[in-house]
């Protein structure tokens, strides 16, 4: 079983939908629902390039209309703050013409066969499911219209749906959905090819602002996160894990731990060793107790002798120093356009810098946790997982069970950001539940989380830019070294994958005659994973701050420089310049989601206007600009910074313009950008993970800092381009351009260029 990174999956598959009746018994079995009525299932299947059906996957989203008028929609993607439990169901409800106040959302368990892809990352829930959700709603709508037409003996064309009723235009005739269920049950389910989707003007919810459905439960403390899952007789496990990745337990003295009142058992978990993998637990010793406090206390009293393994000597600062020398070399050329060496030889000016960015931890405020019950050869789990199917497969493999024997219930996630895509903490619960014969909740402490993460990898990059005698940018060479995510599965991998390179490096869109993108060897010594926007973070930090320096060298402002370098309106392709490297385009065909310079120029022009780019500002205050397309969404960002005499940085305003195609839930798009700016502010100003003797040096929010309210960006203005283009995701795209825009603003305010993250103006 392999857990795939967000950019490795769903290469060119298309998702289509078909709706069909599901027997009431099957549905009740599947959903635990107790209401009767009409049950529609949406089947998702994949098509090959010619549109031929290649595989039929069992139903993925269920829509039920009860005789009481209640519409129940199954949310199959994980909710971690992006609002997807609201945004996908509202698409169905809008197309159906449902009364949103009567819609109930239930969360799907992890089941590949039943629901199709549930792996919630890569900002693709809306991108992938917008059309299938609309078709699901439209098919149900047509069925209800036909039922009413039959009952009233009128033509379907005279009918419409609104607020949970079928209405006849030009008459007062109307009937609740619930009252049409009996007739609808007797009719065949319409085919997707028979429905006509609504025109945009007919939408009541899509393109507007809908509050999240869990709002009231959250503010009253009733929302159920992973940490809140409970079963009868549940015990708590807290684990002491090997401080070095790949290390193993040699000997355990658990006498003090067992003496803590409430402690029941101590169990050793063997762990993956090396490679650590994306789907196995670390080696450790677990304390099982009646309550969390006893488990934490006793865990801290365990005396464990470790065999630390080959990573015990690892020093991150030392590796960064070494990589500075490494990226000074030629490296492995992955993209080539023109002759960079000639451009350099003929340059009037050469700008060259090395950029450093640290390891980062996800630090979801809800630490990893999972509850497992193993009995009678089956396992049931409740967990805050982004990837319920991957977790289910991993548990089945680990426990030697058929996958059908594992039930994976998904709770709300108290933050995800890529951390909860990995099932290691869920496997710990499953292993301990099996070994102990008890229902086990594994609870990670904050220290466990900061010290045993799947880290965002540190990065060393060198960029060389050449400007010719015509004052044109004539050459761009971008050298990259970082431990790769792939190395977590395969230690022989020492260079970034195509997918990692695509995130702000090989996708360099600017019209420069000579381009070299080269990668260099960097070994992994930690578990490397992905963090919100992944390699876009360091790669766009380096590229977009260098672009600002290029603008200055050319005597241009950064916005004009970017617009000029993007060149004429066109669709950019990269494949022909790539060397033994593909361009995954975030899992979509480039023909379907082209790199469109016109769309990028539009967001840039608009952000310049929105921010008052070019206006004069008081001393110590300045604007900085950066723009970047990631996860197929175009974003331009201007950050206003103030740096006072004590070098204290404050951020009064952030301006974003986003083109994410058709905007589904406007309020949640805005909130993702508001939060994305704060997330990026954390990594720009606060966060760093360092490793000495193979062990992470930070342990809690004192050492690993994230932005707090007083330092946080104050006003975040989000302007969404009005568009009918296919919708694209917004979870990750806000993050990459903020940090370089901030760095560029700091330069404009202080004259100091930033080459190392997090920003430190004292050095």
């Amino acid at each position: 079983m392999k857990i795939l990174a967000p950019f490795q999956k769903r290469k060119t598959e298309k998702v289509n939908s078909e709706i069909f009746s599901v027997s009431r018994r099957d549905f009740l079995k599947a959903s635990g629902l107790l209401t009767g009525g009409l049950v529609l299932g949406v089947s998702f299947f994949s098509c090959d390039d010619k549109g031929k059906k290649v595989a039929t996957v069992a139903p993925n989203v269920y829509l039920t209309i009860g005789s009481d008028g209640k519409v129940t929609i199954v949310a199959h993607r994980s909710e971690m703050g992006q609002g997807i439990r609201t945004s996908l169901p509202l698409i169905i409800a809008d197309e159906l013409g449902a009364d949103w106040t009567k819609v109930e959302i239930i969360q799907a368990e992890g089941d590949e066969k039943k629901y199709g892809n549930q792996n919630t990352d890569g900002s693709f829930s809306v991108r992938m499911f917008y059309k299938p959700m609309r078709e699901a709603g439209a098919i149900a709508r047509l069925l209800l219209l036909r039922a009413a037409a039959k009952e009233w003996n009128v033509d379907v064309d005279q009918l419409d749906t609104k607020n949970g009723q079928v209405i006849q235009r030009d008459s007062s005739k109307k009937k609740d959905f619930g009252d049409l269920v009996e007739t609808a049950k007797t009719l065949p389910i319409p085919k997707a090819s028979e429905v006509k989707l609504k025109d945009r003007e007919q939408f009541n919810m899509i393109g507007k602002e809908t509050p999240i459905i869990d709002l009231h439960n959250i503010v009253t403390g009733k929302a159920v996160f992973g940490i809140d899952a409970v079963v009868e007789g549940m015990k708590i496990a807290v684990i002491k894990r090997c401080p070095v990745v790949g290390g193993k337990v040699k000997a355990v003295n658990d006498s003090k731990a067992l003496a803590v009142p409430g402690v029941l058992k101590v169990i050793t978990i063997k762990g993956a060793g090396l490679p650590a993998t994306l789907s196995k637990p670390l080696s450790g010793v677990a304390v099982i107790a009646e309550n969390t406090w006893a488990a934490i206390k006793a865990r801290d009293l365990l005396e464990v002798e470790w065999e630390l393994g080959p990573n015990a000597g690892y020093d991150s600062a030392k590796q960064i120093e070494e990589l500075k020398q490494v990226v000074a070399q030629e490296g492995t050329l992955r993209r080539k356009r023109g002759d960079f060496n000639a451009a350099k030889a003929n340059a009037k000016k050469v700008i060259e810098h090395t950029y450093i960015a640290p390891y980062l931890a996800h630090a979801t405020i809800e630490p990893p946790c999972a509850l497992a019950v193993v009995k009678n050869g089956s396992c049931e789990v409740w967990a805050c997982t982004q990837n319920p199917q991957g977790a289910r497969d991993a548990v089945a493999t680990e426990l030697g069970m058929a996958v059908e024997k594992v039930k994976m219930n998904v709770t709300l996630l108290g933050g995800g950001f890529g951390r909860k895509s990995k099932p290691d903490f869920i496997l710990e619960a499953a292993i301990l539940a099996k070994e102990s014969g008890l229902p086990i909740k594994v609870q990670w402490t904050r220290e466990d989380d900061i010290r045993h993460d799947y880290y965002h990898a540190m990065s060393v990059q060198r960029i060389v830019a050449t400007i010719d005698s015509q004052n044109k940018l004539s050459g761009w060479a971008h050298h990259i070294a970082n431990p790769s995510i792939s190395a977590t599965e395969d230690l022989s991998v020492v260079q970034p994958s195509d997918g990692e390179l695509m995130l702000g490096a090989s996708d360099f869109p600017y019209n420069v005659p000579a381009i070299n993108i080269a990668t260099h060897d960097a070994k992994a010594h930690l578990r490397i994973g992905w963090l919100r926007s992944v390699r876009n973070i360091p790669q766009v930090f380096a590229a977009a701050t260098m672009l600002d320096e290029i603008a200055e060298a050319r005597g241009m402002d950064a916005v004009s420089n970017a617009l000029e370098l993007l060149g004429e309106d066109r669709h950019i392709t990269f494949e022909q310049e790539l060397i033994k490297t593909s361009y995954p385009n975030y899992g979509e065909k480039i023909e379907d989601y082209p790199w469109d310079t016109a769309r990028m120029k539009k967001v840039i022009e608009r952000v310049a206007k929105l921010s008052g780019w070019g206006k004069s500002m008081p001393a110590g205050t300045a604007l900085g600009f950066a723009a970047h397309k990631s996860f197929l969404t175009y974003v331009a960002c201007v950050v206003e910074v103030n740096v006072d005499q004590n070098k204290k940085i404050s951020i009064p305003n952030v301006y974003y313009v986003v083109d994410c195609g058709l905007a589904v839930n406007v309020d949640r798009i805005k909130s993702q950008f508001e939060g994305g700016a704060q997330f990026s502010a954390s990594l720009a100003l606060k966060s760093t993970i360092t490793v000495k003797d193979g062990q992470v040096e930070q342990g809690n929010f004192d050492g690993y800092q994230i932005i707090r309210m007083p330092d946080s960006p104050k006003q975040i203005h989000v302007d969404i381009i009005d568009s009918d283009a296919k919708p694209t995701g917004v979870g990750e795209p806000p993050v990459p351009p903020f940090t370089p825009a901030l760095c560029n603003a700091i330069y404009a305010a202080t004259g100091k260029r930033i080459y190392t993250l997090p920003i430190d103006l004292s050095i």
Partner: protein
Amino acid sequence: MAKYSILVNGKKHEVDVLEDMPLLWVLRDIIGLKGTKFGCGKALCGACTVHLNDTAIRSCSFPVSAIGEGKITTIEGLSEEGDHPVQEAWEKYVVPQCGYCQTGQIMNAAALLKKNAKPSVAEIEQAMQGNLCRCGTYNRIKAAILEAAGTPVTNG
């Protein structure tokens, strides 16, 4: 182990626990009130904020033995119907994203407004700095507190 009688949301609870057990785990594991969240265990993130009498405390670092006769209020006891002005303002501004830190944020904000009915923006930032939000909802939190205080501002 020792026996304690503590008053939570107006109800007396007799608990028999380790003397140093933080209030957080008494609430969550012993009494079963799950609205108060665990985030750091070191009073660094504020997810576990509850009221001791009218003051916000970090329950993850507050031993049960130190409560004595004090009245504990958790998110479950802040209002009968979830209609405390702070909760209503949170709903109006759709503050939460993942929601995990929000009960702690709300309890901290409610305690702030008890002490200072009309806080300035600077006072809000000062009072709320111990509550982390990884989703980054700070500006909506600020707007909601100002709303609850009856001094709403319109901002972008």
